[in-house]
């Protein structure tokens, strides 16, 4: 949901020292967690480069349970001793029917923010329901020295009998981080006499320089259930403000602008749970986001058109070096090359350039000593031979255009940390780029700015996302392709012998292709052979549900963008066969561990989210020891649910058991209502994987 509000506009001076260098964007090809870490390490955007200035700052620094502000019924917040009355029902309560067993709940939260004068008031009332819940009586309120101030902290404990223990202890100031020019501190305290049944309350005011617009968002979902909460924002008059909300509890009225104050009154907010395979948390929590802009544009089509024009103009200016690019192309391609061959050569050449996003982390001194030169256009970039991922893509665009292709810049929204909401008109959400080339009438999306990405393979977070294909008219919306699972495979082929003591031993070959190869190469790019060997051996250990001895025997190609990464091993699995009286049994599927504990819980709250579709095939041959023969093998299993599929075939010939297993995941996201069916599918997979091959003495 989106709402906009146009206000008057004198220009403000914003004093945060957060410069954004667009070229620091990290091109990536890794799973969510890795990328999240990587991205957080980089400067985040402060101003967009387009016509719309957005002031949307990171919501950090303020810790859980500490970010809650006071103001009641539109009255400005205060840090005096005027606590809200405690009603007998609150004192008596021993449990909350909507959160049975909860250690504590928020009875009430209030956050009132004033972006005109730069302050925010918080009020929190928590009911302690179990001994574990008493930990919420320890408070830590972080703040950034010289940027924000915490004042007027008041706290008290209301005992179960209604008597009051006011906090009169010491408030400690803890240094969390102190470095050059930055001091992140925290006010820390603990409330007295907190017992099961107590109510704890606290309030405080946070202040910052008027004019600084900082972290204007409301996150409603917390670790604890919230019975009631009120929020208000008095927006800055210097910018137009838009707001959007999502996942509000059913029956909640949308945030309303009442006399230039945006208000929200909400009840019964469930505690936030984390689950395996869920989308980014920010997309799931109940929240209201505010975006300030200098543009009061309410029509998102117009907004993006204007943004696209400005962006396109900037890119054209950066790549407008036709002659230099033609000379460069002449060095890369041969006159007789066919069109796609030319394109592949240019792609490979750009990918060979030094991609600064993939350099190891360097200290300031190292960077200074390296004296990297700035580049203002693609000619500079080509001459220097290095650049960041984004700029390398624009260099590729310029070269491809010079080679005579129809080619477009595309700015996209990377889905590793959040999803794109075009109606919000937040240009920062278009935070990544690719290049669209018309090849024999077909659209091919390319990203040579991602190291190790094979030709025409985008990193997973750039697949299936919206983007603006730019032109001088502003551009059109496009969707990047979402390759099916066959483009990202793990193929395991094993030739094994079963020994008399039930051990399997032999050779294993694992081939990773597409995205499965890309993220492994990226993750291990700065490691040495010893670490990479350990990494690959650990991967095999994760495939097998029992302990194995594994030794990598080849030297995989870690440095290229070849579509496949192949690893070969010597493998020993002790005790794979189990005794069954005079018979011996062994599970048909050796590499079953990946699915063994997936979706083990019956209940699901959030949608199911995989980074990308993928497929796995196991082709395992087991030679039986002399004196044994197969009594029975599992029947063929075929379970095809379209978005997921599983087959298991077992053959027995010449005392060799041959098992072929296929496993396919062909979706990225499923609503939680499909969880039960998906879980059932995984149960069937596990059941198939545990089917037994029965051996008996040959005589």
């Amino acid at each position, binding site marked *: 949901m989106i709402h906009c509000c146009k206000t008057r506009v004198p220009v403000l001076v914003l004093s945060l020292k957060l410069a954004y260098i667009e070229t620091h964007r990290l091109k990536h090809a890794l799973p969510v967690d890795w990328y999240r870490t990587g991205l957080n390490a980089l400067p985040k955007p402060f101003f967009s480069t387009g016509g719309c200035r957005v002031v949307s700052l990171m919501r950090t620094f303020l*810790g859980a349970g500490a970010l809650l502000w006071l103001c009641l019924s539109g009255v400005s917040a205060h840090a005096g001793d005027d606590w809200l009355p405690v009603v007998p029902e609150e004192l008596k309560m021993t449990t909350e029917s909507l959160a049975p067993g909860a250690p504590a709940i928020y009875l009430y939260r209030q956050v009132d923010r004033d972006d005109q004068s730069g302050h925010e008031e918080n009020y929190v009332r928590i009911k302690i329901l179990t001994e574990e819940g008493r930990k919420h009586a320890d408070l*830590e309120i972080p703040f950034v020295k010289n940027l924000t101030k915490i004042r007027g902290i008041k706290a008290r404990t209301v005992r179960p009998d209604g008597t009051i223990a006011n906090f009169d202890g010491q408030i400690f100031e803890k*240094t969390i981080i102190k470095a050059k020019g930055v001091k992140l501190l925290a006010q*820390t305290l*603990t409330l007295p006499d*907190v017992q099961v049944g107590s109510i704890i309350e606290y309030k405080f005011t946070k202040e910052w320089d008027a004019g600084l617009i900082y972290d204007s968002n409301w996150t409603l979902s917390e670790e604890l259930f919230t019975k009631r909460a009120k929020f208000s924002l008095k927006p800055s008059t210097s910018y137009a403000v838009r707001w959007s909300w999502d996942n509000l509890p059913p029956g909640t009225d949308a945030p309303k602008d009442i006399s230039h104050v945006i208000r929200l009154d909400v009840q019964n907010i469930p505690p936030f749970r984390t689950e395996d395979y869920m989308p980014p948390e920010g997309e799931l929590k109940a929240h209201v986001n505010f975006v300030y802009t200098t543009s009061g544009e309410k029509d998102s089509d117009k907004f993006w058109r204007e943004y696209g024009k400005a962006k396109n103009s900037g890119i054209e200016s950066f790549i407008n070096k036709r002659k230099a690019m033609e000379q460069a192309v002449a060095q890369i391609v041969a006159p007789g090359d066919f069109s796609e061959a030319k394109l592949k050569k240019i792609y490979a050449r750009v990918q060979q350039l030094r991609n600064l996003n993939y350099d190891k982390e360097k200290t300031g*001194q190292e960077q200074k000593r390296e004296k990297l030169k700035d580049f203002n256009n693609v000619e500079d970039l080509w001459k220097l031979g290095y650049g960041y991922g984004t700029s390398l893509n624009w260099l590729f665009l310029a070269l491809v255009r010079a080679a005579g292709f129809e080619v477009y810049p595309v700015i996209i929204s990377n889905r590793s940390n959040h999803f794109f909401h075009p109606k919000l008109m937040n240009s920062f959400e278009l935070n990544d780029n690719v290049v669209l080339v018309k090849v024999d009438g077909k659209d091919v999306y390319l990203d040579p700015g991602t190291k190790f990405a094979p030709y025409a393979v985008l990193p997973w977070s750039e697949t299936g996302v919206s983007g603006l294909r730019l032109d001088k008219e502003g551009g059109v919306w496009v969707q990047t392709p979402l390759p099916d699972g066959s483009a990202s495979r793990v193929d395991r082929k094993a030739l094994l012998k079963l020994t008399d003591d039930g051990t399997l031993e032999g050779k294993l070959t694992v081939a990773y292709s597409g995205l499965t190869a890309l993220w492994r190469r990226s993750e291990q790019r700065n490691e*040495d052979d010893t670490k990479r060997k350990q990494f690959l051996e650990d991967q095999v250990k994760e495939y097998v549900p029992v302990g194995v001895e594994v030794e990598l025997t080849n030297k995989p190609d870690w440095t290229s963008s070849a579509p496949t990464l192949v690893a070969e091993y010597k493998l020993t699995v002790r005790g794979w066969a189990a005794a069954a009286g005079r*018979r011996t049994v062994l599970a048909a599927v050796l590499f079953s561990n990946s699915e063994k504990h997936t979706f083990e819980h019956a209940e699901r709250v959030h949608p199911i989210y995989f980074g990308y579709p993928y497929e796995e095939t196991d082709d395992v041959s087991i030679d039986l020891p002399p004196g044994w023969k197969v009594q029975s093998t599992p029947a063929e299993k075929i379970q095809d649910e379209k978005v997921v599929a599983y087959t298991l075939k077992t053959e027995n010939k010449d005392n060799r058991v041959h098992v072929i297993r296929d496993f396919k995941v062909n979706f990225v996201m499923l609503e939680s209502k499909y969880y039960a069916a998906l879980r059932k599918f995984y149960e069937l997979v*596990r059941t198939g994987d545990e089917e037994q091959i029965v051996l008996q003495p040959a005589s």
Partner: protein
Amino acid sequence: MKSKLFCNLPPEPWLSKLPHLRFCGFVLAAMTLAAPNAHAGDAPPWMRALTSVALPAHDDKDSVVQLYSEEILNVSSNGKLKSVRRVAYKILRPDGKDFGVARGYIDSETKITGMRGWCIPAQGKDYEVKEKESVESALPGVTNGELMSDLRAKVLQIPAADPGNIVGYEIEQELRPYVWQDEWVFQSTVPSFEAHYTLQLPADWEYKSAWLNYPEAKPVSIGMNQWQWVLTDIKAIKTEESMPPWRAVAGQMYISLFPPSGKAQQRGFDNWAELGKWYTGLLKDRDNASPEMKQKVATLTASSTATLDKMRVLAKFVQTDIRYVAIELGIGGWQPHPAEEVFLHRYGDCKDKATLLGSMLREIGVESYHVVINTDRGAITPAMPAHQGGFNHAIIAIKLPDSVNDPSLVAIVQHPKLGWILFFDPTNESTPFGQLSGYLQENYGLLVAPEGGEFVRLPTLPAAMSGIQRSAKMKMDPTGTLQGEVKEVRLGDQGRGQRQALHGASDRKEWVKPVETLLSHAFTNFQLTKASVTNLDRPELPFGYNYEIIAQSYGKPAGNLMLVRPRILGSKSSELLETKEPRRYSVEFDGPWRDTDTFEITLPPGFEVDDLPPAANADYPFASYHSKTEVTGNVLRYTRSFEVKQLTVPLDKVEDLKRLYRIIAGDERNTAVLKPAAR
């Protein structure tokens, strides 16, 4: 204490250093003869001298080797202490970048007066970083009740910590320690070429040194009341799972300093008794009871007549009503808050809780003593030299009155002077009065009495007091679907862990998850149809789960046969010792325990047993395992027991443990074969 239950911070010696350097051995020669003229930004001569040293023995997995380390402690005649620490590493692998960080600690007793780091790259000019570029940090967040501590770290990132380069740093500190004692921990996880410790004392001072886990090296006198110890080629300690604590294996030297009598209040410790006296001094008047406390004791014990009942109710009060909150500033890391404050605010840390309980017990005429201890068994033993830094927890030893003699009190030992004493940990909210958690059992603690400190060995509880007793009564239908109920009783630490997990859940819906996770290891396809928890909030009673399940495809058809695993759920085997590298250290168990399983499966109509797996029997001094599968009528019955009897499996018995785990793993995979019943 400096840290609470379950914490054991790595040792950080508070001393080292010296301004006027006197080197010996290779480094001295190299510095004086070969040091180039230094320029601003160049690495210092002591580091430059390392560029040509031979690397100590190492393997291809070592990320770095330590070329040099030096701790210098300088005590001036006015009692001021200064220290210098110098360390240099050669980076061998990319992983070694983590060693390109200088880290110094600051607290109320310690300040950093200088901090610099350097890198000598294989090619190019040296790098230098200074203290102003460092980052200072404390632990963010209130984790596990650690609200406030004055301990902070100053961290300096050294540039270019890349393979082939040498990184090093120097940290100077001024110290005001509460106890004049130093620890030189010279052995680490990486091999070391050369390590020095230099001590400079005023003329009339003395020192005593003691060595641990390493052959003693004699010092060389290098000046007036100045000594130096030098070690070379120190092997790395490769960490292993379930190994003894670091303090029990790493080479260390302890130095106690003794000023001439009357010159300084502080001094080092000659023995543990002295340390106990020092701690007794910190406890002085801390256990005074306020009128409100006396009133509370009277109220709490009003309905009890027996002393034991009164003790129980007071212990329960401190255990549960006093919230764990640690505020450790200055001596507050060692000295408890006054009992009356702890009582008033209803919060405190381990030593505060012990103090309050001791005070309240005294009101009913029961004497008690603080016991300082380390939660890692083996980190502190009487064989070690007396030192302050090895403790991280405080509990209480209660002198049992003659009238108190109850079989539920098992955490007891008979002390030659005090008679029967009961150990109790009021910080641990879910261990009943009379018992001890595994990590405290067989552990050594320093019992603090007015006449001094004395090591006591805490008792080992019977294995049967901890563990999981699981029983299942199931029926199988001809399709292989298993259905029935499971009862679990979790005793001792096994119950404690589950209680903590459930108490931490955001709501009751989450309670089912531990059971689902357990079942997912046993069944490929299951529904949990009913589940309940018993005695969640009554730690004095056994914790339990009762649940009912339907597990499809449990029986695996194989032709006309049906394969059934008699061991329905739960695993006792371990991959701990299935490693490429041979084991280097003993295996330490958390505590003694005894698990039992009794599983019954009523066979599907039309089937009878064709083959049963063999029984498994393994008996070792440290553990035993027995299982058998039987058929009685149409019921397949599997029973087993697994008992850990000794808390340490010595290195020479580790292969036996590996064998035992393999026997268990094999037994757990074993299968019974059913065939169509004869008509």
